[in-house]
């Protein structure tokens, strides 16, 4: 308004020309959205997920609002590296927001291929945070897969915390469940990563610590 020589229209001053007002409103909208999302500029998406994978992932999420208290839900698609020496896969996730400390729910969605008849025994490990020594693996969860296709596997949120680099690596090891409960796996591809069946991680993040607002008000 200063630039055009008029005063703020909200304060009863002369109104802007329609073209100028429209430009101002669009600029305000941009600023409002970026500010609301705590971004300094719009993100440049260099590797957008395939449309079909995106649609499939969004359909699998629970509808409705996000968590109360400025929560966020994040879907992160995995980059999958199959191991040729064992029935295992390495999943790498690149996360942008400082999610780690406020994570309260995590689910890993996998599309499991038909490897062999019977129950499949799946173990999910996490590669240690980068500050620790290389090669440290922590067992996060164990699941029995009784049918093929999509599975939503719950991961302990406490086991995923502590990562500050934004890169999360999970290793999946699988094999048929033997009579004594031991894994007797043979080399076999576990995940279907072609045909837009890309695995993804569903994270629920609370922006504020529980009770933080109440403590501030007191």
């Amino acid at each position, binding site marked *: 308004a200063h630039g055009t020589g008029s005063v703020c229209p909200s304060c009863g001053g002369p109104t802007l020309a329609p073209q100028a007002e429209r430009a101002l409103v669009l600029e305000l*909208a941009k600023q409002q959205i970026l500010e609301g999302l705590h971004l300094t500029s719009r993100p440049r998406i260099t590797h957008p997920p395939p449309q079909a994978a*995106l649609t499939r992932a*969004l359909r699998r999420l629970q509808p409705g*609002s996000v968590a109360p208290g400025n929560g966020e839900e994040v879907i992160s698609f995995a980059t999958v590296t199959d191991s040729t020496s064992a029935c295992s896969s390495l999943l790498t996730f690149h996360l*942008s927001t400082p999610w780690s400390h406020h994570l309260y729910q995590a689910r890993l969605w996998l599309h499991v291929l038909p490897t062999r008849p019977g129950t499949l025994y799946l173990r999910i490990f996490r590669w240690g945070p980068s500050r620790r020594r290389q090669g440290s693996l922590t067992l996060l969860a164990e699941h029995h897969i009784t049918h093929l296709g999509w599975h939503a596997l719950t991961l302990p949120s406490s086991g995923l915390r502590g990562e500050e680099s934004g890169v999360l690596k999970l290793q999946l090891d699988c094999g048929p469940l033997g009579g004594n409960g031991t894994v007797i796996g043979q080399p076999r591809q576990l995940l279907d990563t072609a045909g837009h069946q890309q695995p993804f991680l569903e994270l629920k993040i609370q922006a504020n610590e529980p009770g933080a607002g109440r403590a501030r008000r007191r």
Partner: protein
Amino acid sequence: TPTCGPATPLCCRRDHYIDFRELGWRDWILQPEGYQLNYCSGECPLHLAGSPGIAASFHSAVFSLLKANNRWPASTSCCVPTARRPLSLLYLDRNGNVVKTDVPDMVVEACGCS
């Protein structure tokens, strides 16, 4: 709050829909396709300034403070938002992750004179 008509001089809510295509942002904001960015405009004559019930907004508090400190032109009152609601957004972040979040105070629902 009255919605602004073509010749409404007094403080009112101007309804304005922003399509994210207009911003060139449809490639990273997945849902919704746009939102109702309403804003407040119009005159606030003296008898409407600081009317009960509309002085409770953050904006009103700021304007009152400015007036109290003589940093604001005398007898000027502004038409400001007095009620807002959040907007749910689904967008892609720079790593191609999908983020679903509620952004507070995005949609102006009511206006009033400070």
